[in-house]
């Protein structure tokens, strides 16, 4: 745990800086849009109603969905841009609404007095209306800050580093300390910014220049402190050194000297371990590695297609269903060949090869319960379908493999329950659900004494792990050479064990990857 905490703290400057810059830039631009818009809209009742409605609709889109939607809207760009756009849109409503309400709420008698005394429209706005509406506007800005700083944790899945990295990674690896860490820092940041703005308002209202200067200095210090980690190199924590001489997997040392390689990873344990493994291989070859973890499934693929990441690991069945939109059954080897050809022709993506193991969807249940009910394969489930509940991640029940399995084995009567993948193994172990759509490489299958039900009709598609290189990375022979050693190097058992180390033995993905590295270099 202590080592874990130290590692978490190591990442803090980068994540906090990403979070602050993302939130503040979104709010500042949001402010620059919503304030003038509010001033323009306030005296125009119909226009005001229209823009408030539009902003209101944006606000009702769940934060995660809005962030994810920005990726295709920006042509597949990941990282700062889509996160910024979504949060900026998110920040508009509270400021806009409060500006309109604040200005409309200025007593008409006061405005008329200002007209009667000969103030021009501009003088009325700056000297009378805005100062009187200020408390309401500031309240809007504060609401906006709290929302945006909170929602910025959702920037992680679209590839923008934020305190959400702690939360998402922690959720996947069941590291609750990490989740708590992310929440506390995000909440703390929101409170600090909120209070700074409140003090600015007090300073403006009471004309306390000193206070304004102090708060301004604090805000600037926060921004400088956030920008700094972008330019200052932090010494990275020492990489675990593996000193075996078996060079088949290890790339030639120095082959990638000073080349920058950007690696992506989706948001689950196995992906962290594999990204870490690739990183160790590349670092040994002299490359400098940048990582984008916790990407959404499609977002990772889009990022690769657009050369925003150079390489990541995906699974044949996933590409088959989500990218190629195919759902007919096909054997494992044919699928790989067709997929590789398709990716090369359609997107210029190079499929370097299969890693050796398969991480398929399989339906698992407790061994003792399976035995008691006489269930060995999916076909045996039909009899008990009405009395059973299947748990699975949110994705699986919308996929054709579930729909095909259900239809092929007559499981229409079975009830389903979507939950985060992290929780489903414990849920089936504790009897909260009867069957889960397990990942076949998960270490908990053996550890929890679960059995994967046979699929006699071959409905479930194959999920070979494959190393994919972006169109640009495909043109870098050194990179392909360095990673080629990993092709065919990892067995199902090795992967399951590495996952178990991380998920159940509380090892970090780095440690699990180092263990895996040792296995493959032997």
């Amino acid at each position: 745990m202590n080592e874990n905490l130290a590692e978490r703290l190591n990442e803090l400057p980068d994540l906090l800086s990403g979070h602050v810059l993302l939130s503040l830039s979104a709010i500042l631009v949001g402010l620059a849009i919503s304030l003038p818009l509010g001033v323009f809209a306030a005296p125009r009742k119909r226009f005001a109603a229209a823009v408030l409605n539009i902003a209101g609709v944006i606000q009702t889109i769940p934060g995660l969905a809005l962030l994810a939607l920005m990726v295709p809207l920006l042509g597949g760009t990941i990282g700062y841009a889509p996160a910024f756009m979504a949060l900026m849109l998110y920040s508009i409503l509270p400021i806009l609404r409060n500006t309109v309400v604040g200005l409309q709420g200025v007593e008409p008698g006061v405005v008329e007095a200002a007209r009667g005394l000969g103030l021009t429209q501009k003088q009325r706005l700056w000297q009378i209306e805005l100062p009187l509406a200020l408390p309401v506007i500031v309240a809007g800005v504060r609401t906006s800050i709290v929302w945006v700083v909170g929602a910025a944790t959702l920037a992680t899945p679209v590839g923008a580093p934020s305190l959400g990295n702690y939360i998402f990674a922690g959720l996947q690896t069941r590291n609750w300390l990490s989740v708590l860490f992310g929440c506390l820092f995000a909440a703390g940041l929101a409170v600090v910014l909120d209070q700074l703005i409140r003090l600015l308002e007090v300073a403006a209202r009471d004309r306390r220049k000193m206070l304004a200067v102090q708060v301004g200095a604090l805000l600037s210090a926060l921004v400088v402190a956030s920008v700094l980690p972008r330019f200052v190199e932090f010494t990275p924590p020492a990489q675990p050194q593996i000193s075996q001489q078996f060079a088949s997997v290890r790339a030639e040392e120095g082959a990638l000297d000073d080349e920058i390689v950007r690696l992506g990873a989706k948001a689950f344990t196995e992906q962290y371990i594999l990204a870490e493994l690739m990183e160790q291989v590349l670092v040994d070859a002299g490359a400098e590695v940048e990582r984008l973890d916790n990407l959404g499934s499609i977002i990772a693929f889009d990022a690769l297609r657009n050369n925003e990441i150079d390489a990541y690991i995906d699974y044949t069945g996933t590409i088959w269903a989500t990218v190629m939109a195919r759902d007919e059954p096909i054997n494992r080897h044919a699928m790989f060949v067709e997929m590789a050809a398709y990716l090369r022709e359609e997107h210029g993506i190079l499929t370097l090869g299969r890693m050796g193991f398969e991480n398929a969807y399989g339906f698992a249940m407790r061994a003792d319960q399976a035995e008691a009910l006489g269930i060995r394969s999916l076909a045996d489930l039909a009899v008990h379908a009405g009395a059973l509940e299947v748990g699975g991640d949110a994705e699986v029940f919308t996929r054709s493999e579930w729909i095909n399995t259900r239809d092929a084995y007559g499981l229409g009567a079975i009830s389903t329950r979507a939950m985060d993948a992290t929780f489903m193994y414990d849920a089936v172990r504790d009897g909260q659900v009867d069957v889960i759509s397990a990942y076949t490489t998960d270490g908990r299958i053996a550890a929890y004494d679960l059995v994967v039900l046979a699929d006699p009709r071959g409905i479930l598609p194959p999920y070979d792990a494959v190393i994919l290189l972006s169109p640009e990375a495909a043109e870098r022979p050194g990179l392909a050479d360095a990673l080629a050693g990993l092709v065919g190097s990892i067995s199902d058992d090795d992967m399951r064990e590495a996952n178990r180390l991380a998920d159940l033995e509380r090892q970090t993905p780095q440690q699990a990857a180092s263990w895996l590295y040792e296995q493959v270099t032997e």
Partner: protein
Amino acid sequence: MSNSGKPVLELRGVSKQYSGGVKAVREVSLSLGEGKLLALTGTSGCGKTTLLKLINRLEEPSGGSVVYEGADVRQFDAFRLRRQIGWVMQGDGLFPHFTVRQNIAVVPRLLEWDIATTELCVRKMMQLVQLDVEEFGGRYPHELSGGQRQRVGFARALAGKPDLVLMDEAFSALDPLTRDDLQRDFKRLQSELGFSAVLVTHDMAEALILADEIAVMRDGQIVQSGTPSQLLAAPADDYVSGLLDTPRRQMRAIAELGG
């Protein structure tokens, strides 16, 4: 119409028709002599406030012309015109985020007077309306009584040294004692400073006490205009005598009590 000297203000066949077609003011002609007070009175919705706003171009006439100091008001820049003419409104209309000093200094600041002149002016105005500079200068409107606020309202209107002051129900929101006080102070101020004034009021008694000249309005038209004694002696019709009845009855009742 009895006039002494050249008129400060002349209304020549002024009309105001709103875009909805409502005729708020119909062909009104009036003139106001230097140092005089003209009261516009009549029941609610008779057009008296609209007429007042036509003078400093808070509203633009749809017919006729408003002549101020010999020139059509449309020849003035509207903002300059308003700074030149004093403006007092019902319920004071003070800026709640300005102190008393800042409220009074609004017009001098708009006229870009230097700081010393402005400060001198603020002090003088506060003395004129009988508010202690040290005690009240730094207070905000919500820290004042209704009467004190209205005094600041007058000080603010007079700070730019206007020769014409427009007042919209300036005394109406006050309790009777404060109102009486302020009305007398106002008369004194007017004779000291010599400005002319137009007062919109629905209170005939107030018009009779304060005005040199009263114009009674109904449906946007002048029904009768003249000095208070002319109106009392010969009301033009039932509407005017109706308006005069209330103060008359009250005077009679009070006279009877006094024996």
